[in-house]
């Protein structure tokens, strides 16, 4: 409760500063129109950017969960309805595919002194997006529960499943392990994580031909099934939001959860202080003797529409620089794992940065990755519930992907 209030206060302060005293962002004139997803860190960024509004500069923002569905049509008109699209590695791809974003090299040189080199998303040497926060699924566990059963922090998925079996048999915990196994995007993401952990390559190098139908794919599925066997029967309905009450209600002891949730989960001023104090964040486990964590790294950033005037582009870039200014991260250090200069990782970001340090791979930004992700999300449920074999599941994924990729023009 207090947690929410604190952020609300931070937001309110930013909003107030927007309406009372215009922040001086040094913009002469222009129109800034931001399209963004809707969660706390992005609210902070867009509120700070909106504060640049003045008599000659208009700044509007539209924060909506539907941003992914709106962005392509909205940016393909001329002039486009939005000047800035806030994106992640996944959602930048459709914009790149259709050539709807412009390089920002000149703007970076002119106004981007605050940026660090690793914030620049460069494609073919050109800056196509600017990242400001990182995210990844990583391990969270209940220290007291594991200690009581004499289990050390699991470093691998094998340890994790063994620990879950022990807890279930000896500790009397009905579902020691939980995960985002809801069919669709979440389940697809879990496979992507696990498959990366086994060192698998999703596609044959240099082509869009699928390559998951092999040893790594079967092992990844077997591991996911082994995890599922230690979970509550409803595991196929769990996504990030529905796991919240399970974790705060002490319904589980281990999970691989998004880093963006960490600050709320370990907040001792929240609804379940005892659980929060007992939760430890760690890097995502490795799997199958691999050396890198079985997870994928994500970033959130912004890209700039192609079909806008240079004046608006300049104004938009400056407004976004104010939005991701070091002060914003400094004022709200726990809101995200910021990539912004001067940011010191808070306890909530420990998991994400440990995962990055352990060498996890980024989520592939391939043009056809989204099609594979959808095919995975739709075709693994039957295997997970024991209704078909792993081979059949992978064959189904391959068929679905091939059909979709043919329709999208990536395969002949």
């Amino acid at each position, binding site marked *: 409760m207090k947690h929410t209030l604190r952020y609300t206060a931070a937001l309110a302060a930013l909003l107030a500063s927007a309406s009372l005293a215009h922040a001086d962002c040094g913009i002469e004139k222009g129109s800034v129109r931001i399209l963004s997803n809707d969660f706390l860190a992005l609210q902070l960024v867009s509120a700070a950017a909106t504060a640049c509004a003045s008599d000659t500069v208009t700044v509007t923002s539209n924060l909506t969960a539907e941003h992914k569905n709106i962005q392509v049509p909205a940016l393909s008109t001329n002039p486009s*309805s939005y000047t800035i699209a806030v994106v992640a590695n996944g959602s930048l791809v459709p914009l790149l595919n259709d050539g709807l974003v412009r390089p920002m090299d000149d703007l970076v040189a002119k106004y981007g002194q605050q940026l660090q080199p690793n914030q620049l998303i460069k494609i073919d040497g050109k800056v196509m997006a600017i990242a400001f926060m990182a995210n990844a699924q990583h391990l969270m566990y209940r220290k007291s529960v594991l200690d009581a059963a004499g289990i050390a922090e699991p470093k691998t998925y094998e340890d994790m499943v063994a620990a879950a079996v022990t807890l279930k048999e000896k500790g009397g915990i009905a579902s020691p392990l939980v995960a985002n196994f809801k069919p669709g995007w979440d389940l697809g993401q879990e496979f992507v994580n696990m498959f990366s952990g086994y060192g698998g390559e999703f596609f044959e190098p240099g082509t869009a031909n699928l390559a998951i139908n092999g040893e790594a794919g079967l092992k990844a599925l077997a591991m996911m099934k082994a995890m599922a066997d230690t979970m509550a029967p409803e595991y196929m309905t769990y996504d990030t939001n529905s796991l919240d009450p399970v974790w705060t209600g002490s319904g589980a002891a281990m999970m691989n959860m998004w880093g963006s949730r960490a600050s709320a989960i370990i907040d001792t001023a929240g609804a379940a202080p005892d659980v929060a104090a007992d939760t430890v964040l760690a890097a995502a486990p490795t799997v199958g003797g691999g050396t890198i964590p079985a997870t994928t790294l994500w970033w959130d950033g912004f890209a700039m529409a192609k079909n806008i005037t240079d004046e608006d582009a300049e104004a938009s870039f400056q407004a976004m620089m104010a939005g991701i200014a070091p002060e914003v991260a400094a004022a709200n250090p726990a809101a995200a794992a910021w990539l912004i200069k001067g940011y010191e990782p808070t306890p909530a970001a420990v998991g994400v940065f440990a995962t990055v340090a352990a060498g996890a791979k980024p989520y592939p930004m391939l043009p056809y990755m989204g099609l594979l992700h959808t095919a995975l999300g739709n075709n693994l449920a039957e295997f997970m519930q024991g209704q078909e074999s792993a081979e059949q599941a992978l064959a189904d994924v391959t068929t679905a992907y091939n059909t979709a990729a043919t329709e999208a023009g990536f395969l002949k």
Partner: protein
Amino acid sequence: MKNRAERQPLPLMLLCWGFVLIWLITAAFPFLWTLWGSFKVEADFFSYADWMNAVTGTRTIQQTGSAFTGAGYEGAWVEQRFWLAVINTAIVTVCVVVISLTIGTLGGYALARSGFRYTFWILIAALIFRAMPHVTLVSGYLLPFFQLNIWGYLPTTIIVLVAINQPFTLWMLHSFFLSIPKDLDESAMVDGCTRFQAFRLVIIPVMWPGVVTTGLFSFLLAYNDFTVTSMLLTQENQTMVPKIASFLGTVQAENKVMYAVAAVVSAMGPLFVLVLFFQRQIVSGLTAGAVKG
């Protein structure tokens, strides 16, 4: 007024009452539960440990010091400015109902009074139009709307909702007008009225029950729609349902879920008033309408 046909023996009465009672509990319980729970904190209403917490309010007492809290309502209405969405919803629903009914009554009347072959085909076409999944329609709108620069505004959404609802409205009103005797307006025309005058002077006074009923269904569609409003409106033009969905969000902050619960309860208020107010008309309307297949 009790006549002999309506008098019932005791066992049948009990059966009847019992059945109605069971149905009422089934229908109303989730809403009463939500109403009660909207005054609790999230850890109680969505308690993983024990659902009895939602009744006793254990966590609510822990967190706020009292068994009931208005935090959800305060958050939704004050902090998140839910009232803005309420105003937008009021504009959208009123306009959708008025426009749908105006053009729907004219069209429905014409369909009911015309015997041409193509009348039948228009009705069938309307039915097929209704079969189109809304998700596909809405995705098709996006690009043209952005190109015409009409995306995000309330009038666009209103027209789209009117169009989507038109097949149902036409069918319902067409059936309703069929049950109004033809002689009524035809005798007026014999007396020298034009078709429109006959419609205005003779039909309009007797059509209200059917129109009110159809209006209620239009109202519900506009009020509850998520598919269209979530995709075609900007944040400041959002109506209530997408606003509630945004409380749930992609990443839920703690207790924001309770904003959604409080907002859902708030959104039920006007419906209560509406149904009680129009109850009579609904019933008499359908009676006279005798909707025919």
